[in-house]
């Protein structure tokens, strides 16, 4: 069996080979593997319902092999389809294995034939649709709309595209905005700095840093952590600016702060 398969792949009929070459030249013209399969199926010159999927799989694999020989790069989906068809072909050729799970080769082939028939049906339907009598070409609407302009009201309008674009615009704008978190329990360094600059003048001597925490930020651990960090960072900034000095008697001892301005 397997040898026979190989044989037919390596030595396709002249007709098949010519067809495959013609197709390869045109590979860009196809809309994916299903479209290509549909075109290949036409060479069988039978009703799509009676198509030989095995034959079709062989033709497709021949096509892919020829493309490889000609060093034509095929898109990934063509290769995926080739792998699947090779799998299908082996299922169709080998006697059914009772151990094997999943659908039979015949079921898979029938589904592929259905997909091809459905695609062809939609193409035929599309052609019939486009060939209908059409507005503006075969039949016509009123050319001169009556204008009995007595009441002139302005109606504001918008269509769905406007609406979606507006929403997209807002959301896109948001993408550029700094990520805004729920700020309820965040005390920023800027806020701490403001507060300390203001308070520093009133406290002459060494003062525990913790006493600079704003009211209401002591009890909740999350808030306290944020306020402490911000206040500490702010105090470092003040030291850097030469406006204050810090001291700590030992590791983990309270940190104290004193204004330098007063000394001057």
């Amino acid at each position, binding site marked *: 069996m397997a040898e026979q398969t190989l044989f037919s792949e390596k030595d396709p009929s002249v007709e098949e080979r010519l067809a495959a070459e013609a197709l390869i030249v045109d590979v860009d013209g196809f809309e994916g593997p299903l479209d290509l399969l549909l075109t290949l199926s036409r060479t069988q010159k039978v009703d799509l319902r009676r198509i030989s999927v095995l034959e079709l799989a062989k033709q497709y694999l021949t096509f892919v092999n020829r493309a490889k020989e000609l060093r034509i790069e095929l898109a990934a989906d063509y290769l995926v389809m080739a792998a699947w068809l090779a799998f299908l072909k082996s299922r169709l050729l080998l006697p059914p294995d009772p151990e094997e799970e999943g659908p039979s080769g015949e079921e898979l082939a029938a589904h592929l034939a259905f997909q091809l028939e459905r*695609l062809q049906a939609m193409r035929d339907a599309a052609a019939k649709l486009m060939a209908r009598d059409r507005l503006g*070409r075969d039949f016509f609407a009123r050319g001169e709309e009556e204008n009995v302009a007595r009441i002139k009201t302005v109606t504001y309008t918008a269509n*769905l595209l406007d609406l979606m674009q507006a929403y997209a615009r807002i959301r896109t704008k948001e993408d550029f905005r700094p990520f805004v978190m729920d700020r309820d329990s965040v005390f920023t360094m800027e806020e701490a700095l403001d507060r300390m600059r203001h308070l520093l003048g009133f406290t002459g001597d060494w003062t525990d840093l913790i006493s600079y925490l704003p009211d209401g930020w002591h009890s909740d651990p999350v808030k306290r952590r944020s306020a402490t960090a911000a206040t500490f960072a702010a105090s470092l900034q003040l030291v850097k600016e030469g406006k204050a000095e810090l001291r700590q008697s030992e590791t983990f001892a309270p940190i104290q702060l004193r204004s330098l301005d007063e000394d001057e």
Partner: protein
Amino acid sequence: MEDQMMDGPSTSGRTENDTLFDAPPMAEQERMVEAVLFASAEPVTLRDLEGRMPPGCNPREALEHLRKRYEGRGVRVVRLGEAWAIRTAPDLGFLMQKETTELRKLSRAAIETLAIVAYHQPVTRAEIEEIRGVSVSRGTIDQLLEMNWIRLGRRRMTPGRPVTFVVTPEFLDHFGLESARDLPGLKELRAAGLLENRPPPGSLPLGQGDSDDDEPADEQAELFEE
């Protein structure tokens, strides 16, 4: 104004106050519907007609009379879903070279997508892709939306709640269809089972170990849960 009426004795009942109690006679309603349809290039909905005609009128019935009256004439009364319009008879198109508009060139992808929406509606993007065997470019859907030939339908009640597409009254108008049920060959296609979303037998043979690109697989799965 009233004196132009010529349909017998009931005509005199057509003053502002009386209409509240007495709808105009059907012949008069037919005239009204005729005037409104003639004046508009766009299809006019039944609701619009009801809103414009005096209370108590039955535009649906008047439209049926009007349609019969114009049978075989140079213009026809056509129904487009819930809307009505007057259009020239298609066999007279040759007289209208001056009015002929260049039809917008549609790509093959757009034409096929349009047909799939029309025949399979409501249809999701994943289903369109399943039928065509290729992904649908965003430009294609956009173009059809922009031409007002398709619109968003109800969301599918499947995981992910994908949006669906359906055709519009403008689509029906353009292709001279009374409703989407009148699409050519619809019955035959349905009878042949070609409008079904038949699941592939068993599990998907492709992309087994590859769960990275599970997005299409997900949508695919939804498709078959119907």
